[in-house]
């Protein structure tokens, strides 16, 4: 919502600077977005008077005007229809500068020399009026600079009006706020209309409301014998300053009054109304209607229409119809000032995708008692600018009377909510300044809400009004003395943090991606059915991620393209998909995903790094899990469509699936367009949490010495290490403390289909020092078991 300071000053006296005003409005809740000054972007344009007008010999639509510019007379060629002797006009002589750095040169137009031009407002950048030249009032002094004639640049204040304050979508409403601040009254503009003695409204129109639930009140007046034409300078200036385009004097007046009062108005060409009737009713289902913007709409029976005796003539409260608009030929006008129900208007506006200044106001709510004032105000101004005779009285169809709201306000409530110590008179005083009327009863107030405040329905709304005018800055911050410290802590959230911290300790960088990917990526990286967004920003962000992987891979690629080869990144976040069993039900799961690519570490001068492998990532994942105090993990080879066939495993804890890890397949890398190997793991955090315990118990460190033995065996190369290790534990006896593989060998020193494993075994008792003989015995048992299980033999 834009207003100019000069416009505001018509209704309330103040002498704030623009910046002061902006701050005051902002602190009242009318947040000021910008303050700007209208500046004229032309130089050396002077005021001239047309002495005579001749038609161009060859081009009848051009005129040759003799213009007195004070120092001399010029013959200027002009194409505008409104040149006539005696009018005063702006003249850009040779050398004058117009907006967009147009410099006027002498020109020869169809054989006639023209040392300058007569300007339209559009050419001067003052307004969008381009089809006529600008005309100045008689008082303009010939030869003077046009800038001295025009008002000094107006200051425009743009505010962000919250949806609850439709009353401030009119300049008077904003003025009211300033008046409240200054404890003054607004000066309402003149509506002292010259009504006709001969014509009476009832002779011209009949209004019937068929759906009062959608239109509780409809008022109208009639003006006869007007002359449609360009608006006067002051009107154009006001409208253009607040961002509205000038159309013609009648339409401009309706727009001006809407900006002034907040009440949208509509003007119909009276002679186009069949039967001289207005019927307000819902559309016929499937009805087609062409609005002013020449667009055709197909309507359902929920849409509210203004109709004449035969057809629809306006989409109520949103936009007029092409079939009844004001044209240059219009002689008689029916002016509408109505109240349409907000939700209906909003639905219409949303459904047909038309937002107008009118629909914006109706969907927020207009003042039911402000209709007639706006009607009279517009009639008065139409009469002033377009002439005509206003029929006596107005038509008022008001089937659903809206009662003034009365609210009981307890002063105790006020202080209990705000933490203030206001007394009842202070509260009443603040409300009165905002045009509420109050009546004191013991410890409460009976408050009458002015009808323009459609947002005030409850006691708490009044408390807000009091606090707003009282000033939030007068309420002192209070620091509570008693903070309850026994509220339950969200442990799951705390676990998240622990997981995050532990991964960072392993040298991973946390990334954070938005959770939206293309449908294609969502499908490629999951077996589940993705959840798509109905109204996405773009196709690339049209679907919720089914896995953290595709989004993160795009980040990895981004960094690779910036020459960062070695990457260790992770992300914790939610993924989404539709449940397999109940397909309409969605699932949201919290995952942690790890990614490694490039070398296992950066090269340094003393050590060349190697490429990362499956085992690096597996080590990271198992280290994380163990750092959380969870053991009994197990991996099982699996198939995942985007992982390499022999490097994809599911991860289990206590035989419950937790997630998977592996190497991305070549085809998956191709989708993202990455060349190097990428190793990924994705675990379910909530599942992980199931196996986690916050309780920790210290185990005493064994104080007896340990004995270490190496065991190297040769066995068939297809036997998995984990199986061998399991058997070692089974056969190893009570003192076996740890089994660590330190060598895996295939090559010349063993047979072709054989390999060798070398383990380091530690034996220890927590009761006594073990003897070498005891340990040798256990070792023999282990070897025997491996020999029988795997046909393994001791490597010599």
């Amino acid at each position: 919502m834009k207003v100019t300071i000069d416009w505001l000053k018509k209704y309330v006296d103040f002498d704030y600077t623009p910046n002061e005003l902006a701050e005051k409005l902002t602190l009242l809740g009318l947040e000021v977005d910008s303050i700007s000054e209208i500046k004229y972007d032309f130089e050396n344009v002077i005021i001239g008077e047309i002495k005579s007008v001749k038609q161009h010999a060859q081009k009848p639509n051009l005129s040759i005007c003799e213009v007195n510019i004070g120092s001399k007379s010029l013959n200027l060629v002009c194409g505008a229809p409104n040149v006539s002797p005696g009018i005063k006009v702006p003249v850009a002589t040779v050398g004058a500068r117009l907006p967009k750095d147009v410099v006027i040169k002498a020109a020869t137009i169809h054989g006639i020399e023209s040392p300058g031009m007569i300007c339209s407002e559009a050419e001067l950048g003052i307004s969008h009026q381009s089809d006529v030249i600008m005309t100045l009032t008689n008082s303009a002094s010939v030869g003077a600079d046009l800038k001295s004639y025009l008002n000094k640049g107006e200051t425009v204040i743009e505010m962000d009006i919250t949806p609850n304050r439709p009353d401030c979508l009119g300049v008077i409403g904003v003025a009211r706020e300033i008046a409240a601040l200054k404890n003054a009254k607004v000066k309402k503009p003149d509506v002292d209309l010259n009504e006709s003695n001969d014509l009476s409204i009832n002779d011209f129109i009949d209004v019937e409301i068929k759906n009062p639930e959608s239109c509780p009140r409809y008022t109208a007046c009639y003006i006869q014998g007007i002359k449609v034409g360009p608006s006067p300078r002051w009107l154009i200036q006001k409208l253009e300053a607040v961002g509205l385009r000038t159309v013609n004097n009648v339409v401009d007046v309706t727009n001006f009054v809407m900006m002034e009062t907040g009440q949208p108005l509509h003007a119909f060409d009276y002679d186009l109304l069949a039967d001289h009737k207005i019927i307000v009713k819902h559309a016929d289902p499937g009805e087609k209607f062409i609005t002013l913007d020449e667009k055709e709409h197909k309507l359902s029976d929920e849409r509210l229409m203004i109709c004449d005796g035969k057809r629809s003539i306006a989409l109520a409260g949103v936009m007029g119809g092409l079939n009844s608009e004001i044209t240059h030929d219009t002689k008689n006008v029916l002016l509408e000032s109505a109240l349409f129900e907000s939700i209906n208007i909003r639905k219409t506006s949303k459904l047909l995708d038309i937002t107008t200044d009118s629909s914006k106001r109706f969907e927020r709510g207009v003042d039911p008692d402000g209709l007639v004032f706006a009607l009279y105000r517009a009639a008065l101004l139409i009469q002033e600018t377009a002439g005509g005779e206003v029929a006596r009285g107005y038509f008022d169809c008001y089937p659903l009377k809206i009662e003034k709201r009365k609210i009981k306000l307890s002063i105790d409530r006020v202080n209990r909510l705000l933490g203030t110590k206001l007394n009842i008179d202070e509260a009443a005083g603040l409300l009165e300044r905002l045009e509420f009327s109050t009546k004191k009863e013991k410890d409460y107030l009976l408050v009458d809400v002015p009808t323009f405040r459609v947002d005030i329905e409850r006691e708490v709304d009044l408390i807000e009004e009091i606090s707003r005018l009282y000033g939030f800055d007068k309420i002192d911050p209070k620091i509570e003395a008693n903070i309850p410290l026994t509220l339950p802590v969200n442990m799951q959230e705390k676990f998240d943090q622990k997981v995050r911290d532990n991964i960072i300790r392993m040298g991973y960088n946390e990334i954070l991606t938005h959770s939206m990917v293309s449908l294609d990526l969502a499908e490629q990286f999951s077996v589940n059915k993705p959840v798509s967004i109905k109204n996405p920003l773009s196709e690339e962000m049209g679907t919720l991620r089914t896995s953290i992987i595709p989004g993160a891979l795009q980040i990895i690629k981004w960094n690779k393209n910036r020459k960062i080869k070695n990457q260790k990144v992770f992300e914790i976040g939610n993924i989404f998909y539709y449940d397999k069993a109940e397909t309409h039900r969605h699932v949201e799961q919290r995952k942690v995903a790890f990614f490694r690519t490039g070398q296992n570490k950066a090269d340094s001068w003393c050590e060349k790094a190697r490429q990362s492998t499956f085992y690096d990532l597996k080590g990271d994942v198992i280290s994380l899990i163990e750092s959380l105090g969870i053991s009994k993990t197990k991996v099982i080879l699996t198939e995942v469509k985007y992982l390499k066939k022999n490097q994809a495993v599911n991860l289990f804890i206590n035989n419950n699936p937790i997630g998977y890890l592996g190497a991305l397949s070549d085809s998956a890398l191709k989708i993202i367009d990455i060349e190097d190997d990428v190793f990924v793991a994705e675990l379910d955090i909530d599942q992980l949490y199931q196996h986690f315990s916050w309780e920790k118990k210290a185990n005493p460190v064994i104080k007896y010495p340990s004995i270490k033995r190496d065991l190297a065996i040769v066995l068939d190369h297809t036997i998995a290490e984990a199986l061998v290790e399991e058997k070692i534990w089974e056969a190893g006896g009570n003192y076996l403390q740890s089994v660590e593989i330190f060598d895996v060998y295939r090559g010349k020193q063993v047979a072709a289909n054989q390999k060798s494993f070398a383990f380091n075994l530690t034996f220890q008792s927590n009761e006594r020092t073990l003897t070498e003989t005891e340990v040798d015995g256990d070792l023999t048992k282990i070897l025997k078991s491996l020999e029988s299980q795997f046909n393994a033999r001791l490597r010599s």
Partner: protein
Amino acid sequence: MNPDIKEILSQLEQLKQNFLDEISNNLDARNTEDIKVKYLGRKGKLSSFFSLLGKVTPENKPLLGQELNRLKNFLQSEVDNLSKSVTKKSKKDDFFDISLPGVPAEIGTKHPLYQVLDEIKSIFTSLGFTTETGPELETDFYNFEALNIPKDHPSRDLQDTFYITDELVLRTHTSPVQIRTMKKMKPPIRMIAPGKCYRKDSIDATHFPVFHQVEGLCVDVGVTFADLKGIIWAFAKRLFGEDVKIRFRPSFFPFTEPSAEYDFSCVKCNGKGCNICKGTGWLEISGAGMVDPAVFKYVDYDSDKYTGYAFGMGVERIAMLKYQVADIRDFYENDLRFLKQF
């Protein structure tokens, strides 16, 4: 005229500094002798200063003498130490180049937004708030209806929403977690709800369709607007330091009444006005207010008995202020060179 004693002393200090620089770079035995000659030799740098002893005023003479001897002794002992250590190193196979860079340890980083979020969380934890979470895919009821944002109401326009179905949305704020928490438990409630939110904003330097919000809620008997101001005041000071001021101004949110926007005094210019605060001296942080009785009705709280306040804040906004990041997209680009700065 006598030379200025202050000037001489400062030259001596400079000489000492030059000497120290030189020996710290000296890794070669051959240079040790050169350094000794250069500083302590008969025509060395120090000897020229001794000639000044006769030229200063008599009262300054003892002072200068004392300083010169002290420096001479210092240089002598340093040179001795140096030649000892270099002699040791110069046995060829014993040379150890301590100047080579160490092998760097690999240290991971937390995403800057989560670093800020953690800071916010820890401040509120210390103020007695618990942390609650909820789903990102929310029902229309929790995201809108229960927060007094009915369908077909203009207040829906305040948030451009991503819809999955008519009844399921990507949450536009973490306020639904308030509702979920209030439905689960009775007052007193002091909670914050941090998390990812989504709004259908076109992407530019200050807008991204995904962002993080922390929503706070406190409900109990006797909670007032003054308490709300107190908590925001305490938070502002913990986050941006003792000097920060707060400002509340009226606004509108369907789920609070009265509603306010709160601002912090500009952390860059201290309220004088600069490009970050667009000359106003204030930084808009977010919205707050007293819980609307309509919201209490949805969760069956007695609004005659309980009052409460709620507030929100954008993590990105605060992170941008704290780290002086001008473009919100930097956080989601995840350039490792950017992330590793934090």
